[in-house]
């Protein structure tokens, strides 16, 4: 049995994982990155429209700062987020975007002078400032009060991933490609590595590390139609769940992106609407202003997707052989704009739809897009319950996004969390708690458990097909745990998923080879994916309110009095067929921004009993410190700065906003 030792094991080679590895490497520690695929092929590359950071260079971003970004993010989360984590994030995002500029990302830049843009369907001229010329540009995105999304045309994730991937190569970070973690090794509440399968040879290898970081991204492939890459199967969450100790937070919070192309579900960026694109129905009518007069197409994604689904239910979708859909119209942006700023969109439309988006409308339908939930961690990225296990990026719930993530905040989170968590992982390794004995017998046992499970699959005389179970799981999630949810649909989904979990224990594979065997991979993954799917469905069934992307038709109001809390799911025993749910309260008294109306979406919600008092307290403090520096006011409301690693605490410079 081979054992590979390192200070830090990072599972996942996307932006978050690579950034963690670079960070710990810079602190003089070893990090090994495991990746299913060559790291530059990770799903981070698919982020198109951009990364939110409150630089305020573009004139429509002038006056932006961390405070505005903070409030937008908290409102977007429907008050589900941990507000201290949001503060850490918005403070670090400008640093992260500037670091990437120094690493070579060819960010789109501001050009001084007049330019024509489309705002609310109208062509208007805006004038960029001389002093902003050549600085990073920002575009508009949903749920934001300022233009804040920094971008590289519409290939932002690609450019970021290549710059960070190149830095990882420059720093000599080893990436073990085509390796898949099958389980986390842990004992006595301490995680110390993973059992890993070589996807080419089938060999099982023990990886031992002082700290283990899960950065495996989201779980879109639990659904039939998703924008996610085929490798986004929620396996990182499953690994944590299967420890029986680590918890998953808010797994019922699943985002549907308004503009997946129909029917394939391939993403076209929110930048299409940010840049002025409109949503239209079968008659060509622009319908979003009817529902959302304030933000129209640029309300948060949960709201826009819900309105689209509602409009289709009302019989106003365009009909096609695959079913009803709506239209995204970017023709009004003009060919020159599309060629420069939306070129991936153009290529996708040409390749998959055979249309020219400068001339024709794009058929779109909401598609699963993002997993707000994930491995529940503290603000350091460390699991709240399993020491030595960290998580970062979409796989984590530290909890930046609450029940709805804003566009542009995910690719920002990858590098921000990677930076922050990397520092805390290094601190952990350097401290006494980072020490481990080298329990090779424990590794041997852990490998033996996985070997036995694989051998059982390869030798099984069962009758179940892994692919069939996978398709049925995706259908159950799509039917019952989608945009609109209710008790009957969720109960049915839980029942179907639980039955599938039982059936998955009788999967047989036809192909018995242990090397490159895609059927075997599907088999062992679907067994794990079903547990994550059950965490989502059970969490959604239990949550008797609507918040962010979790919308219950039988409980359509947000209910802060009863549900201002985070769902925690664990899988206590391997033989269990359902997760165990628990809850963690969110403290209104600790909030800088107490719950209220989001500024879009439903105005009808039930207050928490502490909200009125806290709101008055916050207002009184703001009144008292009216003349004070905004940072001092913030510190008085909700101290957080000392939670950041020291090197990230400096205040961000930006251009003066015009008077």
């Amino acid at each position, binding site marked *: 049995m081979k054992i590979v030792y390192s200070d830090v094991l990072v599972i996942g080679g996307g932006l978050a994982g690579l950034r963690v590895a670079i960070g710990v490497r810079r602190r003089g520690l070893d990090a090994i990155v495991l990746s299913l*695929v*060559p*790291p*530059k*092929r*990770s*799903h981070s*590359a*698919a982020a198109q429209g951009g990364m939110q950071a409150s630089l305020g260079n573009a004139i429509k971003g002038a006056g932006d700062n961390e405070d505005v970004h903070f409030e937008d993010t908290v409102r977007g989360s429907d008050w589900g987020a941990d507000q201290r984590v949001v503060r850490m994030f918005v403070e670090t995002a*400008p*640093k*992260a975007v*500037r*670091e990437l500029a*120094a*690493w*070579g990302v*060819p*960010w*789109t*830049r*501001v*050009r001084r002078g007049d330019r024509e843009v489309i705002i609310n369907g109208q062509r208007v001229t805006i004038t960029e400032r001389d002093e902003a010329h*050549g*600085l*990073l540009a920002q575009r508009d995105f949903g749920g934001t009060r300022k233009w804040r999304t920094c971008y*590289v*045309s519409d*290939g932002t994730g*690609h*450019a970021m991933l290549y710059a960070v991937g*190149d830095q990882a*190569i*420059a720093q000599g970070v080893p*990436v073990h*490609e*085509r390796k898949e973690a099958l389980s986390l090794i842990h004992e006595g509440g301490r995680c110390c590595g993973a059992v890993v399968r070589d996807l*080419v*040879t089938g060999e099982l290898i023990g990886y031992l590390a002082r700290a283990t970081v899960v950065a495996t991204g989201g779980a879109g492939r639990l659904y039939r139609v998703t924008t996610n*890459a*085929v490798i986004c199967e929620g396996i990182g969450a499953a690994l944590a769940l299967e420890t029986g100790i680590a918890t998953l937070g808010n797994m019922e919070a699943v985002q549907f992106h308004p503009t997946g192309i129909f029917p*394939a579900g*391939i993403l076209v960026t929110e930048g299409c609407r940010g840049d002025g694109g409109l949503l239209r129905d079968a008659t060509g009518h622009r319908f979003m202003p009817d529902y959302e007069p304030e933000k129209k197409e640029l309300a948060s994604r949960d709201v826009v997707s819900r309105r689209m689904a509602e409009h289709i239910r009302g019989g106003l979708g365009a009909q096609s*052989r695959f079913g009803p859909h709506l239209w995204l119209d970017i023709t009004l942006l003009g060919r020159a704009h599309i060629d420069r700023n939306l070129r991936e969109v153009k*290529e*996708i439309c040409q*390749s*998959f*739809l055979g249309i020219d988006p400068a001339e024709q409308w794009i058929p779109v339908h909401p598609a699963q897009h993002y997993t707000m939930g994930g491995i529940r961690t503290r603000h350091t990225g460390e699991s709240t319950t399993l020491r030595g296990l960290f998580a970062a990026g979409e796989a984590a719930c530290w909890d930046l996004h609450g029940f709805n993530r804003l566009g542009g905040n995910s690719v920002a989170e990858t590098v921000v969390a990677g930076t922050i968590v990397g520092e805390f992982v290094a601190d952990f390794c350097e401290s006494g708690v980072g020490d481990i004995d080298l329990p090779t017998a424990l590794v041997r046992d852990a490998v033996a458990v996985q070997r036995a499970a694989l051998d059982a699959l390869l030798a099984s005389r069962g009758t179940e097909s892994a*692919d069939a179970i996978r*398709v049925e799981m995706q259908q159950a999630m799509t039917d019952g745990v989608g945009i609109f949810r209710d008790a009957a649909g969720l109960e049915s989904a839980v029942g179907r998923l639980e039955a599938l979990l039982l059936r998955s224990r009788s999967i047989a594979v*036809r*192909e018995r*080879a242990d*090397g*490159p065997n*895609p059927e075997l991979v599907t088999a062992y993954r679907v067994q794990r994916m079903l547990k994550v799917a059950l965490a989502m469905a059970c969490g959604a069934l239990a949550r008797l309110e609507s918040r962010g992307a979790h919308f219950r038709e039988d409980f359509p109001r947000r209910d802060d009095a009863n549900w201002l809390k985070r769902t925690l799911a664990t899988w206590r025993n391997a033989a269990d067929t359902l997760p165990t749910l628990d809850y963690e309260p969110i403290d209104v008294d600790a909030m800088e921004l107490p719950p209220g109306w989001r500024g879009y979406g439903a105005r009808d919600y039930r207050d928490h009993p502490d909200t009125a008092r806290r709101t008055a307290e916050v207002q009184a403090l703001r009144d008292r410190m009216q003349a004070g520096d905004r940072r001092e006011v913030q510190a008085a409301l909700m101290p957080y700065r000392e939670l950041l690693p020291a090197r990230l605490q*400096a205040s961000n*410079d*930006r251009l003066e906003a015009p008077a």
Partner: protein
Amino acid sequence: MSAARRIQVHVLRHNPRDPASEPRLQSYEVEEAAGMTLFLALTEIRERRDPSLAFDFVCRAGICGSCAMLVNGRPRLACNTLTKDLPADITLLPLPGFELIADLSVDTGRWMRALSERLQAWLHARETEVDAARIEEPMDPDLADRIYELDRCIECGCCVAACGTAQMRADFVGAVGLNKIARFSLDPRDARGDGDFYELVGDDDGVFGCMTLLACHDVCPKQLPLQNQIAFLRRRMARAGG
């Protein structure tokens, strides 16, 4: 409506790690559906017909570069290739020039990493530590766009598979390598000059190995301006070396 076309997909099957495996073509009949891509066709074959078939897809949207293969003899991405644009007989072979893992799966990752290490294909910043709390350095907006144009490479390997020189010289850096050098040499944030780049590509495994057959330019799925970039680079490297 006319009946759906039935297409024959012929796939090279081989597992080089299995001593009993002999390379062979295996044929699968698939009923064509509207909007069917090779990703959808191969996925259907694997889900319904042959669970052992190995291939690599990740994004299935033409942006990650995982799924390059020979489609009726031409290197291209399988995920954004529509079957309706192909004849009813489709032959799929693994991308040449890279180590075969199995069937249509090849190891481009290790090749590309080795290339990056060899060409030091990362931005060599002028300052080692940036103060990220300060306002970033400005850059001409057009220059930023031009750098992005070259930064769009997805390391799919099509240019290497199509390259005449790469057939003869195992260590040839390919258009992917030359494009990376062109990209960093265009970037004012990179401290290196032509003399430094000459050390990396000023030989027959670099820019002087190119025979200007330029299949790379023709097959690049991102339509990178490889022809121009290689020509510019050759001229500059000739100067730098002279």
